């Protein structure tokens, strides 16, 4: 029986990829270990090796195809004694793990090159309130968060020669998550600096350079590794302005993916929003959409203070509309009303917004009109927008992925109880990740994270449904 070769998953968060190149032609003999194709993932271009022996019977997905979903059959391998005539006789998937049912046969037309869908669709479109900072009538361009972050850095580096980026694999490798793709080619090794794997040291080097007035963007491959550097971030970057009586500070951005990715377990899955939000002298930004990622990263680079910019690996591939403006800069410290509503306020930020937005769609079907506030900046926090909303809806639910004790939601709940107690018709519910280290098993990981049902239940509870 011919063997189907399936599109492999080559990174923890890969859902689809581009089939860049076939290195074998139809009719070629293939031995296990032979490189048969090159696949471009969200992180890198990878070679695909054959697992089984045989003859490449038919290529199902042409070279150059984009957005090929993981587990899509990409070719058929003929085993000894088989011929192309055998193709279509219920091919067996090459991987035991691959879904065996209803594998398409070779007679079905292969997807045309470049016809694949855009990267992972953003969350269901709710009625999005217009951002007051974008002029009406501005052309919008669908952009991934990844591209938006890259564009923000490139624009600021073109604008200001004092801006440079440093971190692990930011230059020649083009970024562990491809956020710095192309920057080395445009700006050269002087301004796109590959560091050794020494977070504590290079964070300090960045802060020292910033104290002289340079504007470093320090990329942490993930914020989990920034714990190695947390002394330099807090004791040196955040406090120097105060300790020097305003003489010198650190105009620096620390950025990188934060929070759970997919199946990378306890040491690589942690949301640091609450940690950094604790520290006076820091600004803390955690964007959800590509537009906010771009506008706020540009603002962060220009900001004379140390800014913690918390990204999310899962959001990197999500597409959003980004305004086509020459210089799109958003204000730090201003929340965005993602969707206006009257029955309940849901406050979230970063990837937490994905739960809030999906829950809102379900709640609408139940006749509950929820207002969603995307906080965007954790510190300084736009409490005014939250309080105003609570005064209107009288109910509040917060959603975040971080641990529950001393969470950002706890701080919001405390502030709301102080400033708008008389307006509350129900206790505030703060939804967070579970109070456990992140487990590896797929089912346990899902249980450890917040989910849409929890948000819906919380909203029903505060609205007494």
């Amino acid at each position: 029986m011919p063997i189907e070769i399936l599109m492999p998953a080559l990174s923890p968060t890969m859902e689809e990829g581009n089939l860049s190149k076939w290195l074998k032609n139809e009719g070629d003999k293939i031995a296990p270990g032979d490189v048969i194709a090159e696949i471009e993932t969200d992180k890198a271009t990878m070679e695909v090796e054959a697992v089984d022996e045989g003859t490449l019977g038919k290529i199902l997905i042409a070279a150059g195809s984009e957005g090929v979903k993981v587990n899509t059959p990409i070719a058929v391998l003929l085993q000894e004694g088989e011929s192309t005539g055998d193709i279509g006789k219920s091919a067996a998937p090459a991987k035991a793990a691959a879904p065996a049912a209803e594998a398409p046969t070779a007679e079905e037309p292969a997807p045309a090159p470049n016809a694949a869908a855009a990267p992972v669709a953003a969350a269901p479109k709710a009625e999005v309130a217009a951002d007051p900072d974008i002029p009406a009538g501005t052309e919008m361009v669908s952009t991934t968060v990844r591209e938006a972050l890259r564009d923000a850095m490139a624009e600021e580096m073109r604008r200001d020669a004092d801006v440079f980026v440093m971190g692990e694999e930011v230059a020649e490798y083009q970024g562990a998550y491809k956020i710095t793709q192309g920057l080395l080619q445009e700006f050269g090794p002087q301004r796109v600096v590959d560091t050794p794997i020494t977070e504590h040291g290079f964070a300090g080097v960045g802060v020292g350079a910033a104290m002289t007035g340079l504007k470093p963007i320090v990329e942490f491959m993930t914020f989990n590794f920034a714990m190695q550097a947390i002394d330099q971030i807090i004791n040196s970057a955040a406090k120097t302005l105060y300790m020097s009586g305003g003489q010198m500070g650190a105009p620096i951005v620390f950025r990188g993916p934060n929070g759970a990715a997919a199946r990378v377990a306890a040491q690589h899955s942690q949301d640091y929003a609450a940690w950094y939000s604790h520290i006076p002298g820091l600004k803390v930004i955690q964007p959800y959409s590509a537009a906010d990622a771009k506008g706020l990263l540009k603002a962060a680079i220009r900001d004379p203070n140390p800014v913690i910019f918390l990204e999310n690996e899962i959001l990197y591939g999500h597409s959003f509309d980004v305004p086509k403006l020459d210089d799109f800069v958003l204000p730090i410290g201003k929340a965005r009303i993602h969707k206006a509503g009257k029955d309940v306020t849901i406050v979230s930020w970063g990837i937490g917004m994905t739960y809030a937005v999906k829950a809102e769609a379900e709640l609408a079907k139940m006749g509950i009109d929820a207002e969603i506030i995307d906080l965007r900046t954790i510190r300084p926090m736009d409490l005014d927008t939250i309080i105003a909303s609570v005064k209107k809806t009288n109910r509040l639910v917060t959603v975040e992925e971080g641990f529950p004790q001393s969470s950002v939601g706890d701080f919001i709940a405390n502030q709301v109880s102080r400033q708008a107690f008389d307006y509350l018709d129900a206790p505030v519910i703060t939804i967070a990740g579970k109070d456990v280290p992140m487990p590896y098993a797929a089912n346990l990981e899902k249980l450890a994270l917040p989910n849409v049902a929890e948000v819906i239940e919380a909203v029903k509870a505060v609205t007494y449904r």
Partner: protein
Amino acid sequence: MATAARKAPAKSKSDGKSPNLTTPKPLDFTKEQDLAAYRLMLLMRRFEEKAGQLYGMGFIGGFCHLYIGQEAVVTGLKMSLIEGDQMITAYRDHAHMLAMDMSPRGVMAELTGRRGGYSKGKGGSMHMFSKEKNFYGGHGIVGAQVSLGTGLGFANRYRGNKNVSVTYFGDGAANQGQVYESFNMASLWKLPVIYVIENNRYAMGTSVTRSSAETDFSQRGLSFRIPGIQVDGMDVRAVKAAGDLATEWCRSGNGPIILEMQTYRYRGHSMSDPAKYRTKEEVQKMRSEHDPIEQVKARLTSKKWASEDDLKNIDKEVRDIVADAADFAQTDPEPDASELWTDILV
């Protein structure tokens, strides 16, 4: 072997394959140089003696780490610097600031937590800075200043200027991990950083032999191909000679260099340290035989570059500056309560 060929020599340790970096002979100072060194070191000594006094009187609080005994190190190195060179150190920092020509009033008033202090009274003994004088602190976390100082060197290279970052740390900090992370990057990127290890023999109360597997600190850069030399840190002429070599090394694009300054602090680690970990005789021997200020004074006298009266005049001038600083630091008001909320963000 590449590593052997690049082995950094210490004094009397040349293996014949090393770059020609041996400890230079102490310079012959001119009269002006000796007088300038004498005056500056005396200012540091008297300033800190006064600080110790004010601490005892309750005017200075918290931690106060005195540099007394080590004055030749920062004095000699300052004599090798040019406009724009940066200096950064840890918390034993008062003399470094005086060397960088920061105002004694501003430093003393910061020690007493007054509004006229360099940090408006918000930093204290361990946290003082002067952008104007290129002094980058004043850092309370042991070893953190080493990465920061490496960043100053990075900025110099980025801007393409000829300045060097003089980054001070002690024999205690020399065991911190980020020091070696910084060494690696500084050497890899050929950053102009002079790593000055002030080996005063005790990391707080732990002697170097009890804390350090390799007590020859000039060799600590070996794995990173950073050359180093050991220097008599009690002799300002030896320090100046090493400083000239090091600044030239860095300005010529050779990357970083390590100067192990062998020195000694007379006082305890901080004001509350009774220094029971060493004998009184050990301290007394250093004071009587190696004191950096007495060495210069003896030269000035024997060469007849200064008369008794000249020395008395210098002493009086220095005491006046210190008295003025102390008066200011005791009478200047505390910061306004509103300062609590300023300088958190720009």
